Each structure stands twice: as C-alpha cells, then as structure tokens.
C-alpha cells in the first residue's frame, strides 16, 4: 500500500473551497516584508551576476583564477553542483510519481520549480567558461559551411545536448502539471487583468473529463521521459571527468556516484527552501512533518551511497598500485594543500546525515535546516575536490600549481544564488506552488481509503 495510507500527509480534511482559498490565494495575498527584503537582496545579486558575466565576456576568462594546470575551476564546479540540485526535483516529481509515492504531491510543484531554476543557473556555466563563447553553437551538430561536425568521442557535445534536453523536459513537465491550477487562478483571481493573464497561461483548460484524461496521459508520458533523464544527465556530466586519463578524474564509478550525489544535494536544497516557505505560507497542514521525515531518510540513504563511493575510490586508488592515483587520492587530497576542503566535505556529507537515525532529529526543523545547508556545502566541496584538487597535482611535478579563485569567481557563484532566489521568489509569488488539484485528489483518495478501512 502506498504511503498515502498514512493520513498524516494531509492534516484535517479541508473542503475544496478551503484548499483553494489557502493555496491559490498566495498569488494575490500581499507579500510579507520578509519576501520583499529577500527579493531586494536577490535582485542585487542578480545584477552583480550579470555585471560580472559582462566583465568576463569583455576581458576574457583570465578574470577568473584558472591557470595551467588548473584549466577548470569554479565554473565547472558550480555547473556540476547546480545541475545536481535539479535532480532531486525530477526525482521527486517523476520517479516518485511513477512509483506512486503519493506523499510527493504536496511538494512536487515546489521541487520542480527548484529543478527548473537550478538548471537555468547550471546552464550559464558551460557557456561562460568557454574561451570564445560566441562559438558555443559549434558544439551542436548542424550542416556548417566549414564542413565540420562536433567530436562525438568527447563528452562535451553530449553534455550540451543533455543539459538542454533536461531543461526543456523539466520546463514542460512543470508547466503541464500547473495547467489545472492556472485555470483555477483564472477563475478565482481578483482582478480581470490577472484572470486574463492566467487565462492565457491556462491554455483554455476547462477541467472536462476528456481534458483530464489527456492531461493524465501526457503527464505520465513526460514523467516517463524525465525518469531516465535523472540518471542520464548527471551520468553524462560525470563523463566530463571519467573519460579523461587524469588521476582523480578517470574513475569508472563516477556516473552512479554523481547521480546519487546529485539527488543527495537536491533533497538537501529542497529542505533548505521548503522549511521557511512552509512557515511563511502557513502550510503546516499540507506539508507535514511526515514529509520532512521522509526527505531526511532519503538524504541519509544518499549519504551512504556517497560514503560507499568515497571508500571505493580510495580503495581502488590503492588497489590499482598506480603511483599517480595513490598520490592524488591517498596522500594529496587528505593531507595536501587543500586538505581542509577534503575533511570539511567528509564531515558534511558523511557525518551530518547520520543525525537522521534519530526520529527526534528528523522531526526537528531547525536541525534539518542547518543540516541541509551543511550538506549543500559538502556537495559543493566534493566537486571542488574532483575538479581542482585533481588538476593541481597531476603527472609531472614541474607543472604543478595551485588554484585560487578571484573575486570574480566568488561574485559569479554568489550571483547565481541571487538569481536562483529571485526566480524562486517570483515563482512563490505568482503561481500556486502546492498543486491544488492534486491535493484535492489526494484528499479524495484518503477519504476513500478511510471508508474502505
């Protein structure tokens, strides 16, 4: 029996009208001061982001800390991290849908939004980090007057394809799920202007049985398409590293390891975002402690996959007997110039989630929230370990050199947080971020199960 059997995923039995009032009104209720302040901050960082992007385009990526041997740096780390964040969203909304984990319904719109905006941040970096971004389109196969095609043995064209596909599918999935609620807004929004705008966005949704049937089919189809993407996208991203010959890069474990890590960080960010949102919008009855418990458990599972991967990586380095691997994995990472990043990563990714063995911790939102932040930090550092630490010490000692980010690197990273936050705040403001129709449906199911019981 599905988790919906536990009725604590929806507290009380609010009427349709109550649900509408509670969940739709967020779009026209005046926003709190907190929202406005956050909005101002995020806008400021977004401006910073685009200023620095312009600077980078004008002067060249020499503005960053990269060098030879550290030809990749923050841009790639941020890319991998943001794209990873997205995965939890798709995991929750697509895979859990397919697995009929009904508790997901309360949070799936929210996480899909997160996915979409995270992928937008991630999408910036592959373009930004190019030496000549104006030629980025050469990565796509098209009949050119040069008579040349992309290199299919390289991971990067596949990367470009995967990320753009992922973005499009996530967008469609998110929007399709939202259509009925947009229609709801069209019918309930206070002003005529809003009703017209929402009306256009609702694409003429009437809620007829036929439309619902098509909607269900399309939604399931998209879920079906999105499901393999969760695995494929980050696997391809991981190939950016594992197809190389570089110690610390060329590791066969990367694809599954990256996917797990992605979902790990994704769930963490969901927690980071949803805990305050639930508070502000008083959704305690819709997003319940049970949800948090389940998400905490997911984090713990993913954390253990990560731990396993770390152990395997180090073991294989030793087992391979390859002196370059051994130096990189066993000597340099834990004890070298960047040792502190390694140990912080271990603490955040391996130790912190162990809190969730205790039910009290799983239900303590403060603990959850702080833990989620630490996990996000840890996952970012994991990518730092892979991208930078491997490069700074490779085969020939003569070419060794360390990497230090510049203020531009840091500014761009901060800027993406701002940009992400901005988009997310707008999302909270203008669309129902808890799927109204599905909540009603779930309530129905719950009632039926009660009767049955």
């Amino acid at each position: 029996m599905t988790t919906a059997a536990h009725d604590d995923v929806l507290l009380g039995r609010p009427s349709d009208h109550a649900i509408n009032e509670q969940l739709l009104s967020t779009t026209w209720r005046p926003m709190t001061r907190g929202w406005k302040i956050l909005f101002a901050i995020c806008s400021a960082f977004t401006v910073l982001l685009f200023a620095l992007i312009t600077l980078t385009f004008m002067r060249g990526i020499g503005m960053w800390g990269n060098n030879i041997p550290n030809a990749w740096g923050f841009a790639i780390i941020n890319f991998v991290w943001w794209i990873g964040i997205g995965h939890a969203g798709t995991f929750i909304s697509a895979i859990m849908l397919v697995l009929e984990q009904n508790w997901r319904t309360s949070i799936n719109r929210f996480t899909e939004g997160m996915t979409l905006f995270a992928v937008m941040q991630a999408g910036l970096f592959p373009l930004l980090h190019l030496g000549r971004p104006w030629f980025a389109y050469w990565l796509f196969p098209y009949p050119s007057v040069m008579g040349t095609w992309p290199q299919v043995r390289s991971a990067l064209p596949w990367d470009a394809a995967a990320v753009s596909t992922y973005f499009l599918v996530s967008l469609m999935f998110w929007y399709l799920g939202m259509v009925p609620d947009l229609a709801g807004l069209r019918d309930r929004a206070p002003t005529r202007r809003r009703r017209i705008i929402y009306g256009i966005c609702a694409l003429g949704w009437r809620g007829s049985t036929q439309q619902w049937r098509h909607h269900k089919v399309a939604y399931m189809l998209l879920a079906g398409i999105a499901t393999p993407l969760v695995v494929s996208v980050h696997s391809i991203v991981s190939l950016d590293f594992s197809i190389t010959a570089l110690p610390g890069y060329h590791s066969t474990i990367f694809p599954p390891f990256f996917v797990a890590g992605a979902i790990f960080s994704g769930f963490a960010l969901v927690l980071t975002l949803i805990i305050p949102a639930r508070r502000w919008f008083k959704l305690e009855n819709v997003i319940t402690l049970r949800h948090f418990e389940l998400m905490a458990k997911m984090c713990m599972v993913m954390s253990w996959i990560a731990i396993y991967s770390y152990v395997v990586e180090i073991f294989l380095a030793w087992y391979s007997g390859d002196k370059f691997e051994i130096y990189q994995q066993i000597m340099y990472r834990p004890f070298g110039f960047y040792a502190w990043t390694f140990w912080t990563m271990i603490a955040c990714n391996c130790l912190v989630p162990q809190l969730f063995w205790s039910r009290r911790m799983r239900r303590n939102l403060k603990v959850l929230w702080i833990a989620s932040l630490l996990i996000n930090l840890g996952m970012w550092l994991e990518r730092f370990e892979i991208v930078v630490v491997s490069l700074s010490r490779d085969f020939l000692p003569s070419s060794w050199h360390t990497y230090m980010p510049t203020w531009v690197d840091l500014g761009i990273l901060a800027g993406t947080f701002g940009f992400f936050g901005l988009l997310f705040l707008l999302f909270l403001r203008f669309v129902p971020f808890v799927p109204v129709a599905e909540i009603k449906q779930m309530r129905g199911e719950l009632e039926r199960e009660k009767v049955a019981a």
Partner: protein
Amino acid sequence: MLDAPAHPRTMGALFPPWTNTAFRIALIGVALAATGVIVAPMVYARSPFATGAQQPLLQPIAFDHRHHVKDDGIDCLYCHENAQRGPYAGLPDTARCMGCHAQIWNDSVTIAPLRKSYESGAPIRWQRVHSLPDFVYFDHSIHVTRGIGCVTCHGKVDDMAAVYQVKPLSMQWCVDCHRDPAPHLRPLDQITSTTWQPTPEEMTRLAATFEPRSLTRCSTCHR
C-alpha cells in the same frame, strides 16, 4: 474535479470564441519562428551576402580584364607572375604596367593614378577581391605548379569588366577539392586557359603525372 466558477464579478466569458483561432495561429507562428531562427543563419551563411561573392569592387583604376586578356591576349602570369613562385599571386608593380603604358594610352585620364604612382613611387591602393581570413594559409605556387588552373578558383576573369569573386571561398568549398583534387587537374600549359576542356583519357594521364594527394589535414591551411 474543479467546482464550477460562480463569480458575480465575471461579465460574460473571459475569452470570446475568436481567441481560440488566435491561439492556434499563435502556436503556428511560434513553431515557424523557432525553425526560422535555426534555418535562416544557415541560408545566410551560404548566400553572397556572407561570402562576398558576385560583388565587383570599386578599384582606384577602372582596370578591365576583358580588354587586357581577350583583346590584347596578355597571359595571367605576365602580370600575376608570383603565382608560380610564391604564396601570393600578387599584383603587378607600377613599373610593370608602365612597361606598356609608357607608350600606349600614356595620357589617358583613366590611368592618371598609375602615372601618379610611377612618379611618386607610392603604391596604388587596390581593393582585395579574393581575401581569405588571416588564419588560413594559401599558397598559389603549389596549386599552379601542380596542375590547378586559375579559372578553377577565380572563374572566367577574362569575361569580367570589374573582377568579382565567383566561388564562395568557404572552407567546405576548399575541402571538397582537397578531398579529391583529380577532377580539377589540367596540363601546365593550360593553367591560365579559361576555355580548356579535358578528355577522359587526358584526366587519367594528368592524375598519373601530378599524383595529387587528398590533403585534408588541418595544418595544410591552418598553422
């Protein structure tokens, strides 16, 4: 299911029937735009606007190749002699022009700039018709001495009042010939001819003499 909208505020339907049509048209429009964004640049890149072909340039002297080649029967290599010797076919120096024009048409207004250059020693600023990007290395002599004729790339210049670029000079165009040069070969005594037509057995003989290689390695042109 959504419960029926019961709003006292709504006056009639929010969207009149025509909006359905409008919406469908909009959808088609979006689809077309999306395709256009991708296809249009590809078309443009192949058009003379981008390749610069078919556009005669205004030269400081209205030099007519038809007259010099057809009427006077001057061979290409008489003026563009470096085509055999170096990478640049180049233009004749003022002295070369004056070789004839000291005697004939020496007072014509058309060649006033020529006389000026001859007296002052300052070069004539011609406009480059066939110009390759700076990252492309092209060597005339190896083509000319290995059986590739002028007309193959420059077209029938002897029919041009003002010279213009005939071929796109795109990489695709270069590579097509570099993949299989054999069909473009001609005997060395026909290099400058614009009318020569090969016979099949001649082609095989030429292929045997020049043994052309398919040179598609990048550094053939990019160094």
